[in-house]
């Protein structure tokens, strides 16, 4: 029973990280209209910038995270201004989608090269305040890190929900995502909405990156962006345009993956738990090509 509770807790923590990374993807899809892999770079750069601000500049850990979010947001806005907009002006919708995706693959390579060049290829210690401490709750040992992950994710989700539901910018963003033309006629400016979307996307990705690099046995490493891609099944399960869908998809996958890690017999072979989300994804895509929570048809991306 204690194992079960421990696995559930770590599963939820893992699911929270999946949820954060896929939120970062979804917000960008909504804001730019194109699926892209930039959140991978954000996760990587965010974690390293936090390290830089915390361990090198000596800022408080949470101020360091804020610093990273600000820098990543600025990068994002610049990328949109100088690359995405340029492609959008020139190409048709379908061609622009592919071009934006490929450009972000290029940016991913660059961010990886820059990271290794600046901070080295070895795993670093982020200097997080919780370390590897555990909390005992009635005979069950939970890592402080898992509790922090869950708490911070809940805070982020509440902020996201408030922004989307209760602010003018949030309403404008939803309007743009629902019906671009109608929103434009109502005088909503995508240019004013976009920076908020970049802040949200960067925030979710940077926090996820920081949390991912405090994993026991993980550490801050230049392959974090690849780790971020393991959140893609959650994104698809959630139906790519739905924020609550992503959170649900992330939590389900996180918990299932942890149970697989804990209970799957060794005869299932190496890295079964890591592959399970992809298998679930393919099965679900076959049954429901629009994801578990089907929003508007996005198959013709």
């Amino acid at each position, binding site marked *: 029973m204690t194992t079960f509770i421990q696995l559930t807790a770590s599963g939820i923590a893992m699911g929270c990280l999946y949820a954060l990374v896929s939120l970062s993807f979804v917000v960008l899809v909504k804001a730019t209209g194109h699926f892209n892999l930039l959140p991978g770079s954000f996760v990587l750069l965010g974690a390293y910038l936090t390290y830089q601000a915390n361990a090198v500049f000596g800022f408080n850990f949470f101020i360091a995270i804020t610093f990273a979010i600000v820098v990543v947001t600025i990068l994002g806005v610049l990328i949109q201004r100088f690359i995405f907009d340029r492609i959008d002006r020139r190409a048709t919708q379908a061609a622009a989608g592919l071009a934006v995706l*490929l450009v972000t693959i290029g940016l991913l390579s660059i961010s990886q090269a820059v990271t290794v060049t600046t901070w080295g290829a070895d795993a670093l210690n982020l200097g997080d305040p919780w370390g590897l401490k555990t909390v005992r709750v009635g005979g069950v040992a939970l890592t402080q890190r898992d509790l922090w992950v869950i708490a911070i994710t809940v805070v982020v989700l509440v902020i996201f929900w408030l922004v989307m539901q209760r602010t003018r910018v949030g309403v404008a963003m939803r309007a743009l995502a629902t019906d671009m033309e109608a929103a434009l006629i109502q005088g909503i400016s995508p240019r004013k909405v976009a920076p908020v979307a970049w802040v949200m996307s960067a925030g979710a990705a940077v926090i996820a990156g920081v949390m991912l690099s405090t994993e026991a046995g993980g550490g801050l490493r230049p392959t974090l962006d690849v780790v971020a891609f393991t959140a893609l099944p959650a994104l698809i399960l959630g139906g790519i345009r739905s924020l609550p869908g992503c959170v649900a998809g992330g939590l389900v996958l996180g918990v299932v993956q942890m149970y697989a890690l804990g209970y799957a017999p060794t005869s299932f*072979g190496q890295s079964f738990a890591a592959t399970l989300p992809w298998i679930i994804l393919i099965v679900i895509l076959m049954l429901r090509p629009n994801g578990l929570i089907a929003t508007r048809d996005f198959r013709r991306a």
Partner: protein
Amino acid sequence: MTIKTLHTVQRTVPATPAASGRQRTIKRETALFQSPVTRYGAVALTFAAIVIPLITNDPFVLALGITVGIFSIGAVGLNVLNGYSGQISLAQPFFLAVGAFTAVGIGGVLQLPLPVWILASAVAGGLAGFVVAPFALRLRGVYQIVLSLGLIYIGYYIFVNWKSLTGGNVGTRASLNMHLGPIDLGALSLGNMLYSYQQGLFMVVWVLVAASMFLVHRILKSSTGRSMVALRDSDLAARVAGVNSFRTLSSAFIISSALGGVAGALYVTQLRYVSIEQFNLVMALQFVIIVTVGGLGTAWGPVIGSLVICSIPLLAGRVAGVLPFLKTDSAAPNSGFGIPAGQFSILVYGLLLILVLLFEPKGLVNIFSQLGTKIRDVVCGNRRRTTTTE
């Protein structure tokens, strides 16, 4: 010419200028080689494949040539899917893995001769593509991309656990049988000249590059190939015109993955060692970068792309000691600022990809062809100013 005269001409002469012109266009479209560039290019490629390894035994040139060749074959395949058919796949490493481990089994364990394991890898890759195609074709856009990423992870799971054949994540050594009939291409001898394994392999690889380019070229001339391009350019229009979308795109998948399988088989031969760890996301991105930078939907794009992309890391490793901003070792972070040679190539890939997409979406091959046109104009005194073919 007025309409009336056109009519009279049509009645009297069976082939009007317009009709014969149209026929000439069709003939030109379906001709074996459309232009002198492709004709002489094909001849030159085959010639170079045989002659280069005979005149040089510089290990650097041979190793680079073999790597470029192997990636070219895989990229020529991926280009059918991503370039001509307008689908998006990142899964080429999965098909390379299928081909590679088929080759390990048939050419390594069973020691059957070269043509057998090459064909077997192509068939195995094609079969894998045949199985995957119905899944992939149900999906579009983002879903298709994520599915193809998933294929790499699932392939990893399958092969890493099939330890008897693949050696798990440690990998396995495999010396494939290099006999082509009575000739051993692994230790070639002409008269009293002896050639090394690498020289023989270079020939095999580049003859297969030429063969796969020719194959794809022929397929594009066929009705299947034209259907692919039609579906890419306008899905709806093509289907209204009677193109069977599913069958056409399935064949695109099969061709692409079969060539991936062949590339995978050759990948084993270069180091005589293979591990599933090599067929990872990095390789997937590398293939996508190759076909895009070279030029999506062009005959020579994949080869040019491979040449550029595969040369960069090897050249960077060579000049790292000379150039001040490069360092050879990434494990020495305190030895002053410098880009590690391995990272430098990744940086250049990224920059190339972005620059190509922003300024030359048709790829590097277009820059070369424009250069070629300019040179021809200068040499021939601009007599024949034809528009460049797409």
